[in-house]
């Protein structure tokens, strides 16, 4: 550092000298008038001097770094040469450690000469990273999720409620997902998930599951998300199947949100509340119609694609979006604390309100509470060991419209359902234990039930419960193998047993894992 200062001093002395020289040439009469001018001039010059000195120091610093780099390379080469450790000179030339190293090698001329040589040249062997690592405009990754297995049920597509669940004996291509992600510009981040699955009939179904932008520079701790996205309700609905700890969707989520989950085009505002702990408010407005709004103005439920236009015994009617009240509104509040250094709790309350198409003026409300507790060892390796307990409880209030059907026209309708309010409840609770690096044991319990309505029995509302133990092996964070057993009891149908083996692989950009 000494040399830097002395060089700086020399520089300033020189500049001051030239300043004096300039002053001597100023004609005497004009002197007074120009005094003020000179003052500012001096200031400017001083300013210039300062910036010059700063750039000089900066250059010096950079060149030192380059020398350092060169030295490293020499060290590396020498250490590769056999026998160099004992016989060659590097021992005698200490690495030019820091700025305080001997002044001999920081003399400007020598430095300049060396930097010319050290300029890092591109070589054909230099890596060219196309994707990921913040080196490209777009991070691309691909994730494939398959299952193989069998079940005692005759109606597996009705047993498994998720559109990406295993739905047949043999193999199921559950979820083939391509994700594009990146910064759009200084204001937005964009993400899209294009998802396909192969239905039991062999048809390939392709959908733009999500495609949205998210603001990154809004003031006041606000963030807006807009586009097509999974509604932020609870913990399962907004996440993709390959991030789940079980092979299939929890029953309550399947019943309330439909096979494809609750998602639609819309917009969401969220606000990090200025509390001493983490808490965030979300408010989502989305369309309330379509395949992906099952409890609202939806259509068909199951994934075997036949036209299923009934809900709870009623025919879904055409209901247009006439006013703001016909949209889907979904508020959420989430809170998180660290109980200790290694234990975290996340609590959330969500709701979704919107019209349903069982009648011309009927509405649906869904309420949910979610809870996550996680312990992770302070000495974890690869994220193991850990224990996580996650639970979601939900209730749905569904105003069902009156529905009569008199097919033979004898004045005595075969179907005569009154207008009524249907309440449904459900919960799941899952415990996962990463007991060893790469190994996770899980246990999930599911329970769903509905208050008896005029349409009975209704397999979409009747009581049902399920127990699912499983074991997952992650060879690396880019692949997994999972074995799961489901004990399933459906009221009015009976008990079924299913075993599924799931496997996954991931290619491309390294994913960052949300909590």
């Amino acid at each position, binding site marked *: *550092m000494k040399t830097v200062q002395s060089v700086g001093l020399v520089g300033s002395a020189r500049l001051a000298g030239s300043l004096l020289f300039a002053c001597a040439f100023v004609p005497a009469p004009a002197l007074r008038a120009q005094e003020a001018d000179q003052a500012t001039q001096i200031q400017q010059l001083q300013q210039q001097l300062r910036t010059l000195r700063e750039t000089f120091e900066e250059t010096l*610093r950079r060149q030192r*770094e380059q020398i*350092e780099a060169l030295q*490293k390379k020499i060290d590396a080469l020498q*250490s590769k040469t056999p026998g160099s*450790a*004992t016989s060659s000179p*590097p*021992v005698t030339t200490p*690495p030019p*450690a*820091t*700025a*305080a*190293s001997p002044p001999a090698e920081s003399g400007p001329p020598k430095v300049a000469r060396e930097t010319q040589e050290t300029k890092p040249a591109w070589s054909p*062997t*230099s*890596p060219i*990273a196309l994707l*990921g*690592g913040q*080196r490209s405009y777009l991070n691309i990754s691909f994730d494939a999720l398959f299952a193989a297995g069998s079940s005692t049920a005759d109606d597996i597509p009705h047993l498994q409620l998720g559109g990406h669940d295993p739905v047949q004996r043999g193999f199921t291509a559950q979820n083939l997902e391509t994700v594009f992600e990146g910064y759009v510009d*200084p204001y937005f*981040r964009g993400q899209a998930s294009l998802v396909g699955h192969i239905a039991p009939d062999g048809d390939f179904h392709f959908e733009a599951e999500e495609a949205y932008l*998210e*603001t*990154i*520079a809004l003031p006041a*701790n606000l*963030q807006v998300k807009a586009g097509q996205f999974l509604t932020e309700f609870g913990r399962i609905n907004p996440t993709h199947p390959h991030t789940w700890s079980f092979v299939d969707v929890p029953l309550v989520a399947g019943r309330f949100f439909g096979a494809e989950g609750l998602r639609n085009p819309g917009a969401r505002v969220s606000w*990090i509340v200025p509390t001493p*702990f*983490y808490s*965030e408010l979300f408010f989502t407005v989305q369309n309330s119609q379509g395949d992906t709004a099952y409890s609202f103005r939806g259509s068909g439920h199951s994934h075997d694609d036949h036209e299923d236009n009934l809900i709870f015994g009623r025919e879904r009617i055409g209901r247009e979006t006439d006013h703001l009240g016909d949209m889907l509104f979904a508020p959420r509040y*989430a809170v*998180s*604390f*660290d109980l200790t*250094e290694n234990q*975290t709790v*996340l609590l959330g309350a969500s709701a979704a309100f919107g019209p349903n198409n069982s009648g011309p003026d009927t509405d649906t409300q869904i309420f949910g509470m979610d809870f996550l507790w996680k312990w*992770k*060892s*302070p*000495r*974890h*390796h*690869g*994220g193991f060991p850990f224990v996580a307990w996650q639970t979601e409880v939900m209730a749905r209030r569904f105003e069902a419209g009156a529905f009569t059907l008199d097919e033979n026209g004898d004045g005595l309708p075969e179907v005569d359902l009154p207008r009524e309010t249907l309440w449904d409840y459900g919960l799941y609770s899952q415990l996962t234990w990463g007991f060893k*690096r*790469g190994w996770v044991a899980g246990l999930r319990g599911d329970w769903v039930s509905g208050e008896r309505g005029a349409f009975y029995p209704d397999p979409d509302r009747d009581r049902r419960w399920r127990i699912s133990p499983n074991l997952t092996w992650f060879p*690396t*964070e880019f692949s997994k193998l999972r074995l799961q057993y489901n004990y399933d009891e459906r009221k009015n149908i009976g008990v079924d047993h299913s075993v599924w083996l799931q496997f996954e692989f991931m290619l491309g950009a*390294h*994913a*960052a*894992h*949300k*909590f």
Partner: protein
Amino acid sequence: MKTKSLFYSIALVVGLPLASHAKLNVVTTTPDFAAIAKAVGGDRVEVTALAKPTEDPHFVDAKPSLILKLNKADVLIEGGAELEIGWLPALLQSVRNPRIAIGAPGRVRASEAVELVEVPATLDRSQGDMHAMGNPHFMTDPVNAVLVAKRIADAFCKLDSASAEVYRSNLKKFESAVDSKLAEWEKLLAPFKGQHVVAYHNSWPYFARRFGLQIDLFLEPKPGLPPTPAHLADVMARMKETGARVIIVQPYLNRHTAESVARNTGAVVVDVAGFPGGVKGTEEDYVKYMDHLVTSLANALGQSVGKKP
């Protein structure tokens, strides 16, 4: 001129309270950057590290409490060479803090201050977990630590010019502390130049390079994969070949594997930390941390030499 003076007065009003009252709120991903930020910032900064010194820095949980810490940060210091790729981006998506956005003066990427080694020529995960930008464990070389400290000092000066002199003098103190120690450390390890040392994961190329060691035998068959019996047998054979008699183990790693290898080869297992605070007594102090690292390694190497038949 008018607009300029207006600008200055606004800058004064906005900037002064920050400069005179508030400490810079500095958040670092790992504890090594925190230790250096503390050394440079002194009492003018408040420093928090997101990762614990004992945990595996590749797999930190993106807990919501960390979102809050980043949301309030004036400065974020990250390695930036994919060490934090599994968790930092997930946090930053929710953080909404323009002060630490990419390109902002409050965003410091330490890897930009140093030259990374072991940059893979091809990206191929069949070779294990890759770091496309090079080996990210560069802070175990004290010379790199000084380069990073300078980068941090530059950022602090830019953000809090009123305390610039303090930062500069702290930096100088840190530099000379490391410099004087460096000579000592080099002297301690000089007798073992060229010796082979075994590690679990390839976290030590910078350290090895600085001190002339060859930390090139790993218990992991490939980065990120667990040891297999066949690979361990191979490692033991190579330990005998090369005379490697020291195995270094970080706090989050399974000591059993290292111990059984040590039993079979007569080697010594040494507990070292990847970060300040990973071993007791080295909390929040980079020089103490390096001191512990070098002396425990030198002791072990000395012992193993004594044991040599």
